[in-house]
């Protein structure tokens, strides 16, 4: 039975058409993957469905009822729940309090019936097969549990259709499996899901059907079992950039970077040496210490022991000290750690260079800066109208390129990239991989920290797997495969070996 039917939905923002003539439907008890690059119109469509923004035209029919101009309250009451990518739980309340937020059980005098709330929450968790204590504080939960809590909250009000917007971004593989187990169970109970994700393996593991949007237009929909990741990717990106093998083996130079018994917050006793022109990938589960190691290698976190040597000389101190020695880091979570929202593209681009040059040349030379910006813009293929536009006017991929350019502009030759393709659409991802390989070709050394194994296969000469702050395995390029990397990241290898002994 079809529970949701959206037809001929169109929406324009200002002059640009965000959606045109979209059709989208969801069956009862299915997980429907909504696919498309960033900017394809997925969020706009979901915002229209949940009544956040009005459509310019088109119809919405849910559970046999038409909603010509839906409001948030109407759609919630009808049984549609939106579980956002950024978690909307309140850390300083208990699990039960979060579930009953805004619909508290009240006794006479308006006092909370706390015991009953906890009992009902416990019942809910039991029904769903979730192991969580309703009386714990949310701040003590793991990210995956918070995600589950949000889903449970939606189910408590008897939502029929849940929209999950990239629900696995912050989860480790075990946690993802746990989440998927619960989704499958709910599916058999007749709940439906709209599943928004960029990760192909997940979509093929969980979804029943899919719909692809591209540039605000409906492209295709169908059954997941009748297609494959390659075909779906082609639908999403159009004809270009389909999963080319971009990796090229290169001649590597001398050792440029060495870590000796390097320790810090979340990692211990790391020994590693990296050669000029090499691309090394760090990987591991969330919390494995690779990101912290990277931040320490840039002076953003303090080191607690051992040495980092660049060109044979020990390096430490503040971030500027690392920059002076040619070390640069592209941090994860671009919006929070890279973007300066009130500044122009040019100002964002030049921020780091200014720190190094301001002692000798305190004044800004506009002409010279424009020249260097144009050169980088050209070589990195940054799509930007004017360098005086706000950085926010650019797409995620182009913003990321501006921040790459920021470090090329200071001539950095050891580039640390922490999750560089996060929130970047498929086309721009491929471009970033090519750029990384170009950098290495030109003698720059690149270390990239990523959770996506296909990414590692595309660019890395070696793959270093971390588990609980230590290196557990180093793979050569040819040895990298999803199965083995997973085996070491989850430390499953040790458990099997122990069992054998």
């Amino acid at each position, binding site marked *: 039975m079809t529970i949701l039917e959206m037809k001929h939905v169109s929406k324009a923002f200002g002059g640009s058409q965000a959606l045109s003539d979209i059709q989208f439907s969801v069956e009862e008890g299915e997980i429907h993957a909504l696919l498309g690059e960033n900017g394809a119109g997925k969020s706009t469509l979901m915002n229209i469905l949940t009544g956040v923004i*009005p459509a*310019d*035209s088109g119809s919405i029919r849910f559970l046999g009822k038409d909603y010509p101009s839906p409001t948030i309250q109407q759609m919630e009451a009808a049984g549609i729940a939106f579980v956002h990518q950024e978690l909307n739980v309140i850390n300083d309340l208990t699990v039960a309090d979060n579930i009953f937020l805004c619909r508290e059980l009240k006794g006479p005098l308006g006092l909370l019936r706390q015991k009953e709330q906890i009992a009902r929450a416990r019942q809910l968790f039991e029904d769903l097969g979730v192991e969580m204590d309703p009386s714990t504080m949310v701040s003590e939960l793991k990210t995956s549990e918070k995600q589950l809590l949000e889903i449970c909250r939606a189910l408590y009000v008897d939502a029929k259709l849940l929209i999950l917007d990239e629900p696995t971004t912050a989860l480790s593989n075990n946690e993802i499996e746990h989440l998927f187990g619960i989704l499958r169970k709910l599916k058999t109970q007749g709940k439906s899901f709209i599943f928004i994700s960029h990760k192909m393996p997940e979509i093929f593991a969980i979804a029943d059907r899919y719909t692809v949007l591209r540039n605000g237009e409906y492209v295709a929909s169908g059954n997941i079992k009748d297609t494959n990741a390659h075909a779906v990717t082609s639908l999403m990106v159009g004809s270009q950039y389909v999963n080319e093998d971009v990796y090229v083996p290169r001649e590597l130079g001398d050792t440029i970077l060495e870590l000796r018994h390097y320790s810090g917050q979340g990692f211990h006793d790391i020994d590693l040496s990296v050669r000029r022109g090499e691309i090394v990938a760090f990987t591991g589960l969330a919390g494995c210490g690779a990101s912290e190691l990277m931040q320490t290698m*840039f002076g*953003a976190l303090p080191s607690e022991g051992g040495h980092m040597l660049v060109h044979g000389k020990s390096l430490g101190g*503040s*971030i*500027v000290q690392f*920059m002076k020695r040619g070390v640069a*880091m592209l*941090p994860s979570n671009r919006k*929070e*750690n*890279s*973007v*300066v*929202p*009130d*500044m122009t593209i040019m*100002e964002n681009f*030049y*921020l*780091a260079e*200014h*720190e*190094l*040059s*301001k002692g000798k*040349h*305190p*004044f*800004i030379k506009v002409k010279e800066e424009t020249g260097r910006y144009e050169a980088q813009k050209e070589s990195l293929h940054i799509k930007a109208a004017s360098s005086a536009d706000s950085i926010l006017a650019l797409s995620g991929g182009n913003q990321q390129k501006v921040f790459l350019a*920021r470090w090329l502009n200071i001539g950095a030759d050891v580039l640390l990239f922490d999750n560089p393709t996060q929130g970047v659409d498929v086309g721009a991802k491929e471009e970033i991989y090519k750029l990384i390989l170009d950098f290495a070709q030109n003698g720059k050394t690149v270390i990239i920290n990523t959770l996506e194994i296909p990414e590692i296969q595309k660019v890395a000469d070696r793959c270093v797997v971390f588990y609980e702050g230590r290196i557990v395995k180093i793979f050569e390029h040819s040895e990298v495969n999803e199965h083995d990397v997973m085996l070491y990241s989850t430390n499953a290898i040790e458990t099997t070996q122990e069992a054998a002994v």
Partner: protein
Amino acid sequence: MNNEKKSFGATLGRLWSQYSFIFVLVIIMIGYAFTIQANGNTFNFGHIAAILSSQNTVIVGTIALGMAFVIITGQIDLSVGSSLVLCTGATIVVFNVTNSIPLMILTALAVGALCGAVNGLLVGLGKMPPFVVTLGTMLIYRSLTLSVVRKVDPAISGSSSSQFAMLSSNSNYMALRKTFGAGKLSIGSFSLPYIFFVFLFMAILFIVISRNTKYGKSVYAVGSNEKSARLAGINVTWVKISVFILTGLCVGVASILQACKISNVTPASSGVSYEMYAIASVVLAGVNMAGGKGKLLGVIFGALSYTTINFIIVSIPGLSVDIQDTFQGLVLIIVILIQTVGPVIRENIQRARKRKQSSAA
């Protein structure tokens, strides 16, 4: 025709959002001109010159320049009024004792910078909220000055009535008070006081720092996104400290103007609420209180707007001085209301228009 109208509206909208401070000043000036005319006088250059040379413009305006930097980094400095008193007191004492103009200027700048540095270090290294730190130093700076003024020999303080005053017996007194403090630069039939040009010079200096130096960009970056700024290599702690020191230097310059224009300072009453006037000028300049955004050019206009509001209130006959702050507060709230609500209203109108268009189609 319709198109032309729209683009004119769009240009006006952009001008308003970028240079709202000019519109604010023009509107307030027109209001002032009306009250002058209503009093039976003609609005002329003399009235404008009076606004330009008012101590509200030059002294508060100079302090507001530093305050703008502090606010752009997302901080606040409540101690400036008290620092002004402390700084002017020290400046006058040094003048009375030494009769030396260079030493006097040096004292003003050094004491100002020191007051700012204390704030900055407590905030930057102590990681304490600037509101609380500068609230504390606001009380400390003024009370220190108060306790000193009552104990100092009148031959040094220059007055026996709980204030610091420039000694007229010093040989450089006339040069500072009459030639500089009350002196004017005449261009044709117009004349403007020297001290206004000091403010103008400071304003230009700060505009250049904010727009054309790498340091200036780092100030904006820290206010806009501290984490990103740090990860681009900016020493966030130093930037936060430095804006307080700059504000202190502005207070130093302002205390020279106070000494030369007014010749004395009363620790119990001088400079009271100047921190609020300075913040008000910065707000009227269109600087975002949350940090990261705002033009230093606006501070000139903001300071002038604030002074003009005072002049309007004083020039309305029958209006008691007691009610003055009510009007100032109202104008401030109205201006901010227009700045924040304006864009929302514009968006709503656009949305309604679009809905009408699409339903017509």
